[in-house]
């Protein structure tokens, strides 16, 4: 045994070579460092920035309320937009040509309308009809056909009251978002291997269960990253709510302070910082959602697997 260790060949000699030089990298680094220095110098020396004034005002109560409205609106519009988008996407994949045609038309229409135009229109739905009734469609025609008078309406809502402010804004953003989400969800569903649906069918699972339990969870992996984009776009697009108008939103509040005090630049910078902070917050959320839906695709071990492997190694050492 001892002779074995002495005759074992020495490890191969490491290669000693002069590495390739990269002067381009050093030049690029120097140029970028110079640009950063100039930028910081500008931030610190230009008196227009008024940093003290900005920090004093960017956390005032109306601004904080504005940030809350912006976040709530972003989350609600995205949630409703995603739900409606899933419905529209599933309709698009339906074998029924009427259903898939309707879905195509929805996406065609709402993707074509600029959000600011749609928001303005939603805000003025009160002018289209004074009251919005819930009941049987074409009830007047139906009743006169039957020789009766009266109507079949159960609930009346005042259009000028419901299509204002927050609700009109939420409606416009949701309708628009659903059109984009429908395309994202459709791409996700189509990215799932058809063999998955076949395997589920062969096990006797119905279409709905297959979609909910097998296809959508796998489609989510493809759906989540572009949905993160959409959410950040939505955060920024809440500033379009001025078209409704919803004045309690973040950007409007910051600009209002700027106009009132003639400190335009400090408040514009405050706006930039606020949106940076909020979108960073949303990106953290996206990270955790992505991790949730990548189960079975990465190489990470779950806690249950670690303990199972530990049990295996213990068992194997006997």
């Amino acid at each position: 045994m001892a002779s074995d260790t002495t005759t074992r060949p020495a490890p191969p000699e490491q290669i000693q070579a002069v590495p390739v030089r990269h002067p381009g990298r050093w030049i690029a680094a120097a140029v970028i460092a110079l640009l950063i220095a100039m930028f910081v110098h500008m931030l610190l020396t230009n008196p227009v920035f008024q940093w003290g004034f900005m920090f004093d005002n960017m956390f005032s109560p109306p601004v904080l309320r504005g940030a809350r409205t912006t976040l709530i609106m972003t989350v609600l519009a995205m949630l409703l937009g995603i739900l409606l988008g899933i419905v529209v996407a599933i309709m698009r994949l339906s074998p029924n040509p009427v259903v898939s045609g309707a879905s195509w038309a929805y996406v065609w229409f709402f993707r074509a309308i600029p959000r600011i135009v749609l928001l303005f229109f939603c805000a003025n739905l009160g002018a289209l009809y004074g009251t919005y009734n819930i009941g049987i469609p074409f009830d007047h025609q139906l009743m006169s056909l039957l020789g009766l008078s009266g109507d079949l309406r159960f609930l009346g809502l005042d259009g000028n009251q419901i299509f204002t402010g927050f609700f009109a804004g939420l409606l416009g953003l949701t309708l628009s978002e659903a059109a984009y989400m429908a395309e994202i969800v459709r791409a996700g569903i189509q990215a799932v291997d058809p063999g998955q649906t076949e395997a589920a069918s062969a096990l006797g699972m119905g279409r709905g269960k297959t979609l909910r339990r097998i296809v959508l969870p796998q489609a989510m992996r493809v759906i989540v990253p572009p949905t993160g984009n959409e959410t950040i776009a939505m955060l920024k697009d809440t500033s379009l709510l001025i078209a409704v108008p919803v004045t309690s939103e973040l950007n409007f509040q910051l600009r209002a302070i700027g106009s009132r005090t003639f400190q335009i630049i400090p408040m514009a910078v405050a706006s930039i910082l606020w949106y940076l902070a909020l979108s960073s917050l949303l990106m953290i959320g996206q990270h955790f959602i992505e991790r949730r839906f990548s189960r079975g695709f990465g190489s990470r071990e779950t806690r249950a697997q670690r303990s199972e492997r530990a049990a295996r190694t213990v068992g194997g050492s006997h």
Partner: protein
Amino acid sequence: MVKAEGVHKSFGSIEVLKGIDLEVAPREVMCIIGPSGSGKSTFLRCVNHLEKINSGRLSVDGHLVGYREKGGKLYELRESEVAAQRRDIGMVFQRFNLFPHMTALENVIEAPAQVKGIRKEACRDMGATLLERVGLGNRIQSYPNQLSGGQQQRVAIARALAMEPKLMLFDEPTSALDPELVGEVLDVMRGLAESGMTMVVVTHEMGFAREVGDTLVFMDDGVVVEAGDPRQVLTDPQHERTKSFLSKVL
């Protein structure tokens, strides 16, 4: 168990099955061999209605596949009725088709829990037993991408067995596997055959067909060329086409 009479299937203008007549008895293991494009996989997929046949009659356990006959007329079954028929027919695919977002155990218990509505704990016990039976009792928490091809295919077999099928269909179950992993899957299938399961196996494994199969069917160009006892078909083929095919694969 399976009865096919004059089964035809076309994809567009291409006729893939040109009148198949086959019968599989309960507890019988039928192996189907033949060149690629001969229609053997298509036939298997017709048996659990993943493909619709164009003419002929195909029944499993005495029930027409995909149709109900009433007063000499055929009525298409609803989606839910087709799904109910498929519950009694297990299928194992060439490419496994495990659900990648679920662990081995979750793959196995998904259908019993979701379709039959069996309680979670009962499912877990049954799933663990089935995975034990295919030799994977220590990998129940692994995701499919952490398993080798042979292990994945064994999970797929356990998943199909979880629905307690009366008939198992295997569509080239070892064709996507590395050669050294083929044996472990065939062993599981052999055990299943010995337990009395009715099986239809589309395969290129002549050894398996000879040792385990009760009947060997040679298909070519959408027809059954020759069928009979595996040893006899393999050693003494009657038809020219069978001879030339076997001379290439044996």
